[in-house]
């Protein structure tokens, strides 16, 4: 187990290194460059720009810039925002809780509902429920998230007036209920596509497990059908789903970016789009690294969870 952990950890570090190199290169090779924003200001002269370049160290070779940036990153200095000079980590830190809240809630919804639909679809295969779930999943998968968001706002905010159309809370009202009220629509919209994915995978994993010999053994023991399904089938079907949860993390993160924009949710997704617009490269790079760490961490946790749950890996 310790060897396994160290192995995974070292793999993760190499992965982070690759992500940082690619991210840095792509960003710096894009036309425009970090100073394009300043260039739009008519009061800036060419000399001013050169001086800025010098100050920010942007006139050095790219390789040096990368190592300088990476070295500072390792020491905890993620640079300063071009926009307001605030430390990047602090800027990201301000936006992280909102994103984590949204992602966490919608992941929980996706797993709970998707698992249930998947198990029921598999145990009642080719039933009306199963067909409806299949069609529903196809619809949810083929319609983009922002469309669901806009339709949701139109129906539930504009027509019915039940739910707020955006933001995380009403200014001046910081109660938990107020937060929850604002959370309902974005988290459900973000979870839709993941409910669909999760339920399809869960259905096939459950069918795989039902076909296994040990399920027949369990029935031959005289166990109730409920116990056969809950204990023997679901336990084994959930095993591959843990890995899936790790793999799905980037897609939830991407989905959060879109959802946050639609619902003016003050999270990392909004920050990312805004920073890109301003060519705020330190913040963009910081966000890139932060989400890479988040995704790698998520997969690492999923791997460890599988290893803990599956005795063949834990003890083998």
């Amino acid at each position, binding site marked *: 187990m*310790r*060897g*396994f952990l*160290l*192995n995974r950890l*070292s793999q993760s570090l190499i992965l982070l290194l690759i992500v940082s190199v690619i991210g840095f290169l792509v960003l710096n090779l894009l036309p425009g460059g970090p100073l394009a924003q300043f260039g739009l200001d008519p009061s800036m002269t060419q000399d001013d720009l050169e001086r800025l370049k010098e100050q920010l160290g942007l006139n050095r070779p790219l390789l040096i810039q990368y190592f300088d940036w990476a070295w500072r990153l390792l020491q905890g200095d993620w640079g300063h925002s071009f926009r307001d000079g605030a430390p990047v980590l602090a800027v990201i830190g301000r936006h992280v809780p909102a994103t984590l809240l949204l992602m966490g809630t919608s992941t929980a919804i996706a797993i709970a509902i998707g698992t249930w639909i998947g198990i029921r679809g598999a145990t009642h295969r080719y039933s009306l429920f199963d067909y409806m779930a299949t069609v529903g999943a196809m619809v949810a998968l083929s319609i983009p998230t922002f469309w669901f968001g806009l339709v949701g706002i139109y129906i539930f905010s504009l027509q019915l007036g039940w739910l707020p159309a955006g933001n995380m809370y009403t200014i001046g009202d910081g109660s938990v209920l107020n937060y929850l009220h604002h959370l309902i629509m974005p988290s459900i919209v973000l979870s839709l596509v993941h409910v669909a994915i999760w339920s399809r995978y869960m259905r096939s994993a459950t069918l795989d497990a039902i076909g*296994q*010999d*040990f399920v*027949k*053994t*369990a*029935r*031959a*023991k*005289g*166990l*109730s059908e409920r*116990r056969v399904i809950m204990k*023997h089938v679901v*336990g*084994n079907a959930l*095993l591959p789903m843990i890995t899936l949860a790790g793999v799905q993390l980037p897609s939830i993160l991407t989905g959060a970016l879109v959802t946050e924009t639609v619902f003016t949710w003050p999270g990392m997704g909004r920050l990312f789009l805004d920073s890109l617009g301003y060519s705020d490269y330190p913040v963009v790079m910081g966000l890139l690294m932060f989400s890479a760490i988040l995704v790698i961490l998520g997969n690492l946790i999923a791997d460890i969870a599988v290893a803990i*749950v*599956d*005795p*063949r890996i834990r*003890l*083998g």
Partner: protein
Amino acid sequence: MVATIQPVAPADVALSVRDLTVNLPKGMERTYAVENISFDLKRGQILCVIGESGSGKSVTANAIMGLLPKVIRVSSGAIHLDGMNIVGMPQDKLRSLRGRVVSMIFQDPLSALNPLMTVGAQIDEVMTAHRVGTSKSRRGRAVGLLTEVGLPDPELMYHQYPFRLSGGQRQRVMIAMALALEPTILIADEPTTALDVTTQAQILELIRDIQRRKGMSVMFITHDFGVVAEIADSVVVMEKGHIVEQGSAQQVLKSPGHPYTRRLIAAVPHLTGEDRVPLETADKAPILKVEGLMKTYRSGSSLFSAQRVVPAVNEVSFDLAPGRTLGVVGESGSGKSSLGRLLIKLLDSDGGGILFEGRDIAKLSEAEFRPLRPRVQMIFQDPFASLNPRSTIGHILTVGPVAHGTPYARAREEAKALLAHVGLDAGAFDRFPHEFSGGQRQRIGIARALMFKPKLLIADEAVSALDVSIQAQILQLLDQIQRETGVSMIFITHDLRVASQICDEIAVMQKGRIVERGPPSQIFLDPQSAYTRELVAAIPGEQPGSTRPVAANG
């Protein structure tokens, strides 16, 4: 059709099946899985139900357990378990009988246990399901059961997960589980088919021993007359959903009445102990010479944790003359399949040499070996998995030769000729694999290998997945092909009886080494190594020294 059934006093009968008919869903090859079958299992006896695949023996067992899939229905007849008719019984009542009055063990012990639960928890579950005992008494009982089925260190075994156990040990756990509530009837569905021959002998011994001690009634399903000869008190022979013959084991084995039974018994491969008449070839120089061949598997990651090193093939040397067949026999994990893959270079060796027609192919790169590949061909074990379901037979046969430069028209002519040669219709050329039975697919597999006019054929368990009667036909085909083409063969199998049918020489492998090598007469009648003796003694239904122990008059 049905032999007369002696009326027995109901008290004598643990299980009685009367005129049972089980329907198959529409669109299957026949309407009934079983039709009008009747038999009795007397108390304290072992009844063997024997038949080939598709005979309906497993459906019968599942009907008795009340475990038939929803689409398969009992349409008429009665099944009396301990006097109660279970046909039409409500599900919850049936459930209370399962595991308590009637238990079942299955064919594949590797997949029959839940990988995520400890052995102890799985045994405990049977008792919990029927609300028997307290958690403490159940635990004691479980450990007692593990002791009873002869597992080492039962206290430790209780907390073990299945993946730590060998196949034989897992089958013992299954038996312990089935015995937990002292059922009246034990149904064993091919419980030893997936096991090595020595393990099979132990498990058969255990089942017979427990049956005697507890006076249990056992319904034992098998396809192997050797197993029947070992343990049966009475026998039911099934063919295509009908019972063609039943009676005492003595009677059915010694003087089978029905032609199907006679055919089945005749098809069972036996230890011949007689050497094959070797094929005379002009060229006597060995076609294959293997010297000190090595292959070691390393598992576990390299960087941070200790590696597990398994020597799969260890210093193996032998040679093979043209037109001869060498049998490689061993139990699972002996390295016989690894050896086969090394020889055809599907696997790279770690040391030693493979001299094919005098040239060392062990060290050749993939590109250098490719021109030689047509000359060494392989026949695979599973005729269902080894043919691409989306290709026509014609494509399967011609794609290789065409890739090696044969014009398509010629390849097609050769393929059609070969199909006829292996006993298939030339019309098979345009059909797909799913349209053929297992035996026919194996013929296609053989034709595919022969397309290249190979000098050496490697058959890896080529008949293991087939019914005995089909097995005999395929062995005959291979023998005929060898006599016609003079191809050399390496025949890898776990079944000594099969090896004795077709091999000029047999190499017995254990833990990666060849422990003994010699003609069948030596291996079976005068084995030199202790391991070979053990293997030969474990073959079911064979007494050492005799050539045809069961069914003298076939």
